[in-house]
C-alpha cells in the first residue's frame, strides 16, 4: 500500500513537472523528478527495494522526458553511491530511521545529493552524448536564490511526505 503511495507520488511528480507547472505557471525547469528520486534516498536510504524502485523510476523519467539512455539512471546511482559513502563515514541516517527527525539536516544532505545528480547528469550528457549542456548550467542554477529556495522547499516537502509513512514501511521494509 505504501509503495503504491510512492508510485502514485512519482506519477503525480512527473505530471506536475511535465504538464501542470509549465502550462499553469510557466515553470519549465523545476527538477521535481530529480528531487523526488533524491528524497527517496534521503528518506529511506538505499535498501534493495529503493534501488529497484529508484532505478525503474529514473529510467521511466528519462524515457518520458526524452533524455539519452542511462543519463538520469547513472546520475541517480551516483547519488546512491554518495549516500552509501556518507552513511559509512558520517553520522547520518535515513530520515525514517533517525532517532530524532531533523528535516533541515536531511534537506541539506538532499541538496548535496541533488548537486551530485545534477553534475552526473550533465557530465554524462556532455561527455558521452556530446549534448550542449555544460557544467555552467548547474553553476548558474545554484546562483539563483529563488530556484535554490524552491529546490530546498521541495526537498523538505518530499521528505516529510515520504517520511510520514515510516511505520507502515517498517512493516514492508
Amino acid at each position: 500500500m505504501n509503495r503504491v503511495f510512492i508510485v502514485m507520488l512519482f506519477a503525480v511528480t512527473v505530471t506536475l513537472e511535465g504538464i501542470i507547472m509549465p502550462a499553469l505557471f510557466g515553470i519549465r525547469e523545476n527538477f521535481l523528478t530529480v528531487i523526488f528520486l533524491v528524497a527517496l534516498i534521503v528518506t529511506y536510504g538505499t535498501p534493495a527495494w529503493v534501488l529497484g524502485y529508484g532505478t525503474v523510476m529514473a529510467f521511466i523519467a528519462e524515457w518520458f522526458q526524452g533524455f539519452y539512455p542511462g543519463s538520469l539512471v547513472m546520475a541517480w546511482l551516483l547519488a546512491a553511491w554518495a549516500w552509501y559513502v556518507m552513511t559509512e563515514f558520517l553520522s547520518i541516517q535515513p530520515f525514517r530511521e533517525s532517532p530524532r527527525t531533523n528535516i533541515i539536516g536531511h534537506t541539506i544532505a538532499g541538496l548535496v545529493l541533488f548537486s551530485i545528480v545534477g553534475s552526473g547528469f550533465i557530465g554524462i550528457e556532455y561527455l558521452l552524448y556530446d549534448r550542449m549542456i555544460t557544467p555552467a548550467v548547474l553553476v548558474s542554477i545554484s546562483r539563483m536564490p529563488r530556484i535554490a529556495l524552491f529546490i530546498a522547499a521541495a526537498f523538505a516537502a518530499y521528505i516529510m511526505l515520504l517520511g510520514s509513512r515510516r511505520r507502515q514501511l517498517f512493516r514492508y521494509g
Partner: protein
Amino acid sequence: MKNGGTKLLVTVTIVAALLIFFNVVVLKRVRMAYAPASGERASLFNIAGQVHEFFGYVAMWHDLAQKNKDLTSALQQNLVDKAALESLKTENESLRKALGLSSTMNREIIAAGIFNLDLAPDGYSALINKGSKDGVVAGDVVVSPDGVLVGRIAAVSDGSSHITLSADPSFKITVSVLGGSVSGIAHGALSDGMTLDLIVQADDIKEGDVLVSTGDDMSPAGLVVGTVSNVQASDTQLFKKVKVRPAFDPKNGRVLVVKQ
C-alpha cells in the same frame, strides 16, 4: 546498506554503465525520445494552458477594476483640486483688482464675498462674510472688483455684514454724468433700478449716459453707479424723470469693502 543493497547497487551500476557504453559505441547515441501518449499530453497541456490563460484574464480583470477604481479616485481628486484652483484664481484676480483699486482710491480695501442676497419687495440687501473682526464698519461703501458701486454697509456683526444695495429705496448717492456737467442725487427704486433726482429740464442728459459718484458725500469719487436707461422730459414739470440701470450685477459674488 541492508538486504543485499550493496550488491544490487554494484550490479545496477554496472548494468547501467554497460547499457550506456552499448548505446554510445554500438547504437551511436540513440536518444530515448519516444514521447509516450503525446496526443493526450498535448491535450492536457492545452487544457492546462487554457485554464492558465483564463486565470490570467481573471487577474487582468481584477487589475483593470483596481486601476479603474484608482483612476476614478484620482479624477475625483483632480476635480477637487481644480475647484480649489478656480477659487484661488478668482480670489487672486479679485485681490489684484482690489490692490489696484486701493492704490487708485488711496483707501484701505477689504475683500469679501456675498453669501446671501435678499431682493424682497420692501428692500434690496445682501450679506457678506466679513464683519467687525475684519475691520468693517457701518457706512463703508461696497464696490465690485471692477470699481462698480454695489451698496453701503448698513449693519455689522462679528463675522458678517449687512449691505444695503444701490437699488434699495434707502440708498442715496451724489452722481454726475461721465464726461458731462450734469449732476444729481441717485436713489434706489427696487425693480426700477435707481432714479436720478434734481435734474432740471434744461440739463443735458440722455439714455446711455454713464453715471459716476462725485465724492461729494461719504462715498469715494469715480465709482460707476449705473447707466441712464430712460429720460422723461415734460415742460409742465420742473425736473426730468430719469431712470438708471445699476451697473452692479448681483450674481457676481465677490465684492470689496472700501474703508471710509
